[in-house]
């Protein structure tokens, strides 16, 4: 579904990604783990067109999207919940979700999608008319994910959904990820919380200083001694 072919990205003279190749298949949850500065966010930014690869290609459903502007991706079926959640703080929860369905014109469809989001995150329903900026971190993350789902994406990109959240809320978020997967949406999950990410994904890639150093089924990686030592702290 999504393939990165030998992608290298530079910030000026500094190389952030070096020859990254990875693929995400239909229906999978693939996670990209790595330490701070390993290039996780850079990878997502390259997929979403915020950064242009110096070399290599990003291919989505057979088409090269490396040079496509970010706003064109939603129509192609890619939706992103950005790092730091990026909810529209001064818009209400409802308006935030409406923004997620920005490209849709059909009112009944939007209403149905919104019901679905509320069903997945009942907390959001309770806070429907509240400004998003007044929500707790966990609620904001739920909103960011609910909003990203409003466009019925085929591929959902999640950037650090557990960042800065209390352990119990992290649990809720990962349950939601399982639920999204069970409904057939493919997910690329970028996470620092390797433990949770490996527990809720099918396959994983490990990034270190801009290179993919390991890849494989999440279960195997979770049992790999090197991963245990470096990322799981065991």
């Amino acid at each position, binding site marked *: 579904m999504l393939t990165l072919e030998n992608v290298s990205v530079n910030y000026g003279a500094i190389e952030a990604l070096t020859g990254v190749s990875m693929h995400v298949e239909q229906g999978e949850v693939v996670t990209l783990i790595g330490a701070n500065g390993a290039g996780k966010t850079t990878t997502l930014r390259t997929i*979403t067109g*915020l950064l242009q690869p110096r070399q290599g290609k990003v291919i989505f459903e057979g088409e090269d999207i490396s040079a496509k*502007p*970010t*706003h*064109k*991706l*939603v*129509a192609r079926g890619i*939706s*992103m919940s*950005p*790092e*730091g*959640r*990026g*909810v*529209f*703080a*001064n*818009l*209400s929860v409802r*308006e935030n979700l*409406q*923004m*997620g369905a*920005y*490209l849709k014109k059909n009112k009944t469809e939007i209403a149905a999608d919104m019901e679905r989001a509320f069903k997945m995150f009942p*907390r959001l329903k*309770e*806070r429907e*008319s*509240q*400004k998003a900026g*007044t*929500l*707790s*971190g*966990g*609620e904001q993350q739920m909103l*960011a994910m609910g*909003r*990203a789902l409003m*466009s019925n994406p085929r591929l959902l990109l999640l950037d650090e959904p557990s*960042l*800065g*959240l*209390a*352990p*119990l*809320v992290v649990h*809720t978020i990962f349950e939601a990820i399982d639920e999204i997967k069970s409904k057939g949406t493919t997910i690329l999950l970028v996470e620092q919380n390797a433990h949770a990410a490996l527990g809720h994904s099918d396959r994983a890639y490990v990034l270190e200083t801009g290179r993919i150093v390991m890849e494989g089924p999440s279960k195997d990686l979770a049992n790999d001694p090197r991963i245990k030592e470096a990322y799981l702290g065991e």
Partner: protein
Amino acid sequence: MPTFIKRILGLVIVVFLLVAVNAWMGREGLFGFGLPYYYAEILNLTGISIILAVSLNLITGFTGQFSIGHAGFMAVGAYASVFMTVYYSDSAEQWLTSLLGATLAQSLVFLGVIIVGALVAALAGLVVGIPSLRLRGDYLAIVTLGFAEIIRIVILNIDRVGGATGFRGRVPPWDGRLIIPAYANFIWIGGFAIITIVVVYNIVNSDVGRALISIREDELASEAMGVNTTRYKVIAFVISSSFAGIAGALFGHFRQFLHTNDFQFIRSIEIIIMIVLGGMGSITGAVLGAIVITILPELLRKLPGDLYGYRLVIYSALLILIMLTRPQGVMGAKEFGISWLKRAQRRPEGDKPIGEKGVPIAQQSTSPNLDQPKEIEHR
């Protein structure tokens, strides 16, 4: 009452009020009561300020793009429309007068040159906006500031519009109108102020408006929702510029004299002060700011004795005081209206404590045994 009847009724009342106020401000007055010219002038300038502030609020307050070149677009509109009036409208007005009578002919000509002013300013907005709206924050501010100065200095060097001596009518070779006709009165100025408010209100409360606000809130997330942010920023910038152009056209035909000194950097800053004071992202706030900033310096002239000499000090002190007590502006992002009075009595639904024992659910759900990790701020 059906909506369209309400609207027509509203329109009739507005027109009636404008005509009445205009008559009151005129030389004969209304029923023997007249407003001295000094006050009438302040009222007219307030109307022009409202157009400027509300239109700047669309780009700065709602879209979050900091532009400090609004006076530049006003200058473009002013000079373009007055240029048309002085050099190209005379014969048209004579021809229309023979057909429709003097009043209607004047109105049509004036409407024509206002549209010219608005279009030329919009074009200038487009030319500046397309390259510069890719920039963010301070960089955009610098570009718009630079543009406004370039415009001013270019105009200063065009002899056809008076150059450094100012533009009050035809210049050699004496082929246009002797003086700029005083087309603008309160019906025009007040009318366009209301049109500006209505247009900006409708934009802000539409899908486009929500896209604009989302750009202000988080440009990256907005882009991720499929909003073509550059395009929307340019649209907002062009609309904003065209209203600045209209304000300029009204200003030119009201003052009957244009000089580039009226469109200096300080003028742009003054418009920004209006919206910062009134509240960025509030239309009524911008109106309030425009009224205060236009009227306050004149009110302070009334200070008795020695205090009069300190009026600019007092003016600055008052602005500082307002900003200290209301840093988000007098209105913040809220609007003042009839519904505002009703709403103020009950708390917004979202503020109600939900869940057991009145504790917000957000706090209940996290484990009480754990110290909550501090929320990381990502701005």
